[in-house]
């Protein structure tokens, strides 16, 4: 990794990272984002994450990126799982337990059907 010596270097790194992100987005991959702050973990986000990974493995799914993020502030709804199918808006699910996570992967990620009863409503 090269060090940053000027604002241009920073810009270069930013553009490269942006490009990588765009490639990710345009590749048709689905992103599954799990809120892994202390609140999320305490509410069971690790089990949820495990269930997501297991389901992906069991169903032999590919083109899915699972990543973590911090706590967005909706503590009442933790664990929170966001699903971003490429080209579509993010969908946020609240209070996701392992069973719900399985359903989300099978129905939303694979079949593309949003499970509205799990969704967090503004």
């Amino acid at each position, binding site marked *: 990794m090269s060090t*940053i010596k000027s604002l241009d270097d*920073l810009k270069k*790194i930013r553009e490269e990272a942006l490009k990588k992100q765009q490639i990710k987005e345009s590749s048709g991959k689905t992103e599954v984002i799990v809120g892994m702050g202390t609140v999320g973990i305490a509410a069971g986000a690790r089990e949820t994450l495990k269930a997501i990974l297991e389901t992906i493995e069991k169903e032999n799914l590919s083109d899915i990126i699972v990543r973590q*993020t911090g*706590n*967005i502030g909706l503590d*009442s709804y933790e664990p929170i799982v966001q699903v971003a199918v490429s080209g579509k808006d993010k969908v946020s699910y609240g209070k996701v337990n392992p069973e719900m996570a399985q359903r989300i992967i099978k129905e939303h990620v694979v079949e593309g059907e949003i499970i509205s009863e799990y969704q967090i409503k503004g």
Partner: protein
Amino acid sequence: MKAIRSMILVSSDPESMDHGALEVFSTLQKQILAHGLEEEISLSMISDVSKKSQNPLVLVYPDAVIYGSVTPEDIPHIVEEHLYKGRVVEEKQISPYDLSGRIAWLTARKGTLPAENRIVLKNVGLIDPEIIDDYIINEGYEALGKVLKEMTPKETYTVIKESGLQGRGGAGFPTGLKWQFVAGEKRDKKYVICNADESEPGTFKDRLVLEGDPHAIIEAMTIAAYAVGADEGFVYIRGEYGLAITRMQKAIEQAQEYGLLGDNIFGTGFAFNIHIHAGAGAYICGEETALIESIEGNRGEPRARPPYPTTAGLWQKPTVVNNVETLANIPAIIRNGPEWYKSIGTPSSPGTKVYTILGNVNVTGLIEVPMGITLREVISIYAKGMKDGGTFKVAQTGGSSGSIIPASLQDTPMDFDSYNKAGVSLGSGALLIGNQDVCVVDLAKVLLNFFRFESCGKCNPCRIGNKRAFDVLSRIAEGVGNLQDLVDLQMLSNQLFELSNCGLGQTAGSPLKDILAHFQAEVEAHIKLKVCPAGVCPMSGNWEHQID
């Protein structure tokens, strides 16, 4: 969350309930859904406002319109005309006079309601905190580059000074001024400390930033170091925040690899290094001089001031101590300029404030809203009303070292200035919302027990005063108090405030002062009638000296 355009309150005092307030509420709910307005309009019930023989009332914020004797049949028309088309339904409007209870309309607010505005929490919950590139994509380290390449240290602290940013740890001291003090000291070594002890019970805003966006803190600390001429920094994180410590450590390593931290930052020769110091969990170590003692390896006891840390801080060198939330504002201010920052919030307290909402409300969690929002708005819009149709009675701000806020102050804008004028304090940003089942004597007792336990014992007023106040409150709670106790509590409150060495003792007196000022009748009921109106206190009549 979309910006809330309008806040609707339906009165739910007993008379309104008799006249169909619940039906009005559910019809409103249905009509709002039918018009597709559910994302722009918040709806909740309040029980502290009513008007004789014209209940139930429907109050529309921020338009300052009250509809009286509303029946479910009126609702479709009101929703269609007022909420959908924006025309007030004059035939149902009533005058705001002779209302029982207090409501206040903020005239400055007409037409808009404060929407969530995320500056501090901009990236939190969106980026992967363990990947530095994620932060850089979101304008990360741009402010640092700008400062190091294009600005002098003086220009840097002047920008912060002009922005009007005040410390978010609770005291609200102007950040730019603090930086200027340290920058003005001619010494061989200076330090920057990030106070991430966050020991206030019920506050977890700093943890969210540390876990969700650690690079923002690194960037801000480096900017501060450049502005004041420091070359070493400490992040004092409480030991319980294991995840925050790991993520911060990782972030520091990543920043070093990129040359954004270390001996040659941005290739300019400017050197700054950050160490993490884990606190051992003492409440007092959130106080800045106790925190400094703790880093030095001593017992966490506050120092006598002056000299302030800005002249003699860590190892007697000039030191900047800033709270996590304060620091998280810095990169955005540098990027967008002080004028932009001043356009948010109120003139006397610019910017946003992060609040953690907890207690008897429907939705708990974290919000970041412009300064100057009112408690009523927080409860109705963001907390989605009181749980189980309860009545809002009391709020406790700022963990323990805040104020006890009565319902009569719920229309006061929440900023440092307005709260000071009202004789209460904003604290560090926790909002514990209590309903009618909360007893203020019990609440004060819990708080004083906490202060009694956490007092470091260095100065007498705090060590003895907290213990005495707790004893008096326990006696009142057991139904064996007398009227002299009220005088004693007032005296203890004054002495704690005036004589204590540090912030712990000085704020320990405020719950006492607040319950006497706002809830005297309830306290007196404990003493004169031997009754706890909320039914919380044991009132067993036998009080024994409690030893632990």
